[in-house]
């Protein structure tokens, strides 16, 4: 990146002192902003709705969902895949941009990490909710038991359990380590005793020692290097749930990379969405600049194009295989009962994202906001149509059955959005929304560049 770009990514007069004061001030302010309170109240109500629906599902069983026997997975798995996808870009933005030393990483990395954390919580809960008998979830773990049984290692559902559990722990650790020096900053700046103890415990006694920083950078390097294969493998493994079956519509070798690209597409869209909301809610327009939105828009466009390529490949494979059933699935997607979902997906993921080719669109917060929402809807519809159209009309017409979502499906999905927002809003009140130590490093690099230029 040229010096010019680095200059434009940071406000002119930003120093270590005033940046720390501003970001820490957002957290340590005694009273929350009115907009935050309103949003928190709405999200809290939706989170309660989620808890209620979950209790209903656990006590009554998965019969509440709009599923039948050809369409056995339905909404819970659509939402698991969708939420995992959102989580992925969070990890990837933070890790890959760290490894490639992108100067625009600092203000958006924390948002991305927090988003990954809470999206994976939603994905995990949905995966458990779909189980039917979640009290037997430990059967997926290999442990010596009185029945002398072991898990079926060849089953992608067992792989899923390991993949999601690993990803959850990794995301938690990555977020905590990213926060560690910032917790120390909050500990040092907190005025009340209770907050000092709260942040003091979280900061683990971090004292900004040079040796500590050096090892801290090393471990972040290791975590970031591991993050890329984790991101690719988790969604890859989840796509194998579908792809290893012989069901037409699921059985495509292109699925793992196709799902990963889709995951990153919806994830970058969500980071852009959160960036637009955060800069408006907390007045951070000078730190999260239009230039940052521009870069996020470019990433969205890149992965949207990979997704579009995958659609073409999928259609081509269905035609080129010459397989009657594969072709029938595709024609059914375009003309069958789920055709509105496929065509809406086409509009969102193929047509609308092309607007991102224009610089003016990428730099407009309103346009990015709208496109982020349509892209997420599009990605959700993509998962929906894959899961529903592939199985509702399979080999024998006697087994055909169209499943339609119930009110419980809709309420639980709405509730999961609420849970995500609830956690995220609580997070921005308790922890800095922009990584202060990453910003300090960025400011230091700019100082050095300025000195060199003189």
């Amino acid at each position: 990146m040229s010096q010019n770009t680095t200059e434009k990514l940071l406000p002119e007069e930003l120093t270590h002192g005033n940046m720390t004061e501003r970001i820490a001030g957002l957290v340590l302010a005694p009273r929350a902003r009115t907009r935050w309170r309103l949003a928190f109240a709405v999200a809290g109500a939706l989170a309660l709705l989620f808890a209620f629906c979950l209790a209903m599902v656990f006590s009554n069983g998965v019969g509440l969902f709009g599923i039948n026997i050809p369409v056995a997975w339905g909404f819970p798995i659509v939402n698991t895949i969708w939420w995992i996808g959102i989580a992925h870009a969070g990890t990837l933005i933070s890790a890959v941009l760290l490894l490639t030393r992108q100067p625009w990483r600092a203000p958006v990395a924390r948002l991305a990490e927090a988003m990954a954390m809470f999206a994976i919580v939603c994905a995990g809960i949905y995966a458990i909710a779909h189980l039917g008998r979640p009290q037997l979830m430990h059967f997926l773990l290999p442990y010596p038991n009185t029945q002398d049984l072991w898990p079926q290692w060849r089953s992608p559902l067992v792989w899923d359990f390991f993949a999601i559990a690993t990803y959850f722990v990794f995301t938690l650790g990555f977020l905590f380590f990213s926060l560690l020096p910032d917790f120390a900053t909050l500990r040092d700046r907190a005025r009340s005793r209770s907050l000092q103890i709260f942040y003091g415990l979280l900061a683990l006694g971090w004292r900004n020692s040079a040796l500590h920083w050096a090892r801290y950078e090393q471990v972040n390097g290791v975590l970031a290097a591991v993050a890329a294969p984790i991101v690719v493998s988790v969604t890859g493994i989840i796509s194998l749930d579908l792809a290893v079956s012989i069901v037409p519509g699921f059985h495509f070798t292109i699925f793992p990379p196709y799902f990963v690209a889709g995951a990153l597409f919806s994830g970058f869209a969500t980071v852009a969405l959160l960036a637009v909301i955060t800069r408006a809610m907390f007045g951070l327009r000078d730190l999260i600049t239009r230039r940052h939105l521009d870069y996020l828009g470019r990433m969205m466009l890149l992965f949207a194009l990979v997704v579009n390529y995958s659609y073409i490949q999928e259609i081509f494979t269905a035609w080129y295989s010459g397989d009657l059933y594969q072709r029938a699935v595709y024609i059914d997607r375009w003309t069958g009962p789920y055709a509105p979902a496929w065509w809406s997906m086409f509009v969102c993921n193929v047509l609308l994202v092309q607007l991102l080719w224009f610089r003016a669109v990428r730099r407009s917060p309103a346009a990015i906001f709208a496109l982020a929402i349509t892209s997420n809807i599009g990605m959700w519809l993509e998962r929906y149509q894959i899961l529903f159209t592939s199985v509702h009309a399979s080999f024998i017409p006697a087994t055909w059955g169209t499943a339609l979502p119930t009110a419980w499906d809709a309420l639980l999905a709405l509730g999961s959005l609420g849970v995500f927002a609830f956690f995220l809003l609580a997070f921005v009140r308790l922890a800095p929304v922009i990584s202060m130590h990453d910003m300090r490093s960025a400011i230091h690099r700019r100082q050095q560049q300025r000195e060199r230029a003189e």
Partner: protein
Amino acid sequence: MSEMKGAANGHYGLIARFDDGEALLAAARRVRKSGHRRLEAHAPFPLPGLAEAMGFSEGGGALSIARIALLVGAIAAGIAFLLQWYTAVIDYPIVVGGKPLNSWPAFLPITFKVGIFNSVMAAAITMLVKNRLPHFYHPVFNEDDFAAASANGFFLSLRGGDGEKLEALLRDCGARYVRELTL
């Protein structure tokens, strides 16, 4: 002031504050060169070169964080594969989908995941152990201004040594002030 805070009134050493990173870096080098090695530099961000000036080596020796992560990950992945092989071939042999009992490619996803999981945990724990964290009490926290170390302050803390000589040296390095640290 600091006598009030410490439980005991013992002497720990000195703390000096510098105006910027370069001054801290130069001071850290000079103090180490003078023969005093029990010192710690505190900066609000990973200042390039500071850790090396404190005697940190990039490789970290035979037990560097990256090596430990790789080693633990490889061992854990090996154990995960052996467990799958043992349970699927020896302890609970059941043919599924006409596949051989030792259908090893199907064991790889979990092998990979368990390996990654353990290498991440190993890296994280190694960092904390090497940094001796958590470590909630440290004499530097007795310095009232030390909170600035997490915003815009650059500090050098010295343990023990000849107080007067070191104080003169620190002042000579351009310290804004030099104060005593108590236990």
